[in-house]
């Protein structure tokens, strides 16, 4: 067992999820909500926050219970824990804003099968203490929220000329309707990944030339 290596929570547990191990842009986890609900910035943000909530709580609970859960049924147990929190979130959003609940639709319930949450429970929370699992959940959730906000922002800006429902671009701007349609979701993510790949390749090339020069 490689469990319990260093149980003190570090800032890195939190920070790694934001960029270096960003669940969406680096690991390509939890793609369904990333594409489906990001047709406006507000939808993306609320979906991200709902996932953040579920991820943090399920990570913590899985970590607290990690020594009690039998190994053979651990996946089923994780899913039950996650499903419980998702039900909580579902009713919570319904209570806060019925309109938002309608626009997110079945995708709130579908957080259950978001592979990001199950992935973190299996890969991190079941091997580390509650404090670290909590930080990991927060960081990964925040990274996920950022990615969703980014996607939602780009798509709403180009597809509707607005941001968070406020018109930003001048009236002469002809909205690219395609961006808020399903196809636009694929395009936006594809282009974002392309840019990230290009930035990475560039940094690597520069590091190599520096090495060669010295």
């Amino acid at each position, binding site marked *: 067992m490689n469990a319990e290596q260093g149980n003190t929570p570090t800032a890195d547990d939190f920070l790694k999820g934001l960029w270096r191990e960003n669940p969406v842009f680096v690991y390509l986890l939890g793609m369904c909500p990333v594409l489906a609900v990001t047709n406006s910035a507000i939808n993306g943000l609320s979906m991200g926050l709902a996932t953040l909530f579920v991820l943090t709580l399920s990570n913590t609970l899985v970590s607290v219970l990690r020594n009690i859960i039998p190994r053979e049924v651990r996946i089923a147990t994780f899913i039950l824990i996650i499903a419980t929190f998702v039900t909580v979130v579902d009713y919570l959003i319904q209570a806060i804003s019925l309109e938002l609940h309608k626009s997110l639709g079945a995708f709130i319930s579908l957080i259950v099968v978001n592979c990001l949450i199950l992935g973190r429970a299996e890969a991190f929370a079941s091997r580390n203490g509650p404090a670290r699992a909590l930080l990991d959940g927060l960081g990964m959730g925040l990274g996920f929220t950022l990615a969703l906000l980014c996607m939602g922002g780009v798509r709403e800006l180009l597809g509707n000329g607005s941001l968070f429902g406020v018109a930003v671009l001048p009236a002469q701007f002809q909205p690219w309707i395609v961006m808020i*349609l399903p196809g636009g979701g694929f395009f936006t993510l594809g282009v974002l990944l392309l840019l990230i790949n290009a930035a990475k390749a560039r940094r690597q090339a520069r590091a190599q030339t520096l090495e060669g020069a010295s």
Partner: protein
Amino acid sequence: MNDAGLWSIFINASLVNNFVLAYFLGICPFLGVSAKLSTATRMGGAVTFVMLVASLSAFGVNLLLEWAGVPYLRLISYIVIIASTVQFVEMFVKKMSPALFRALGIFLPLITTNCAILGVALFQTNRGYDLLQCSVFALGAGAGFTLALVLMAGIREKLELASLSDVVQGAAITLMVAGILSLTFMGFAGLGAA
């Protein structure tokens, strides 16, 4: 109660509102298993089958939950049903046809976390389909999923031969192709709307 005709439900689930390309359900297997045509076909078949079984069981369980007055247990029950259906299908296939079992391999357990399956169960409940409509809906969704997967695999096999810049290799180009496919499927809008 929903009184949509069976044919229009089928067309709607498979083409107009294709699960993968319009609802973005089941993106993970769509991106992960679409590299080869043969595996894509098998995966599509397995998913369609599990969808049908899960949809019928979800229909029964929903009646039970309504009767017991505990609708807030719906999500938890559905996910348990799907997990056990997958397990059951796996054992059944292993017993009945070891050859098919080997062919499906790792795909069967993976289906549990396929959001398209849970999506079918949730949508049919939200729309209040009856038993016959549920099974047609599940078949349509499965057919749509298979179609998207097979189309994507075909395109990706060709892409292997194309000369592409390094930065667009992998997920980036796959997503853009998926975007174009999704736009194409919008051409079906209005079909079977009657």
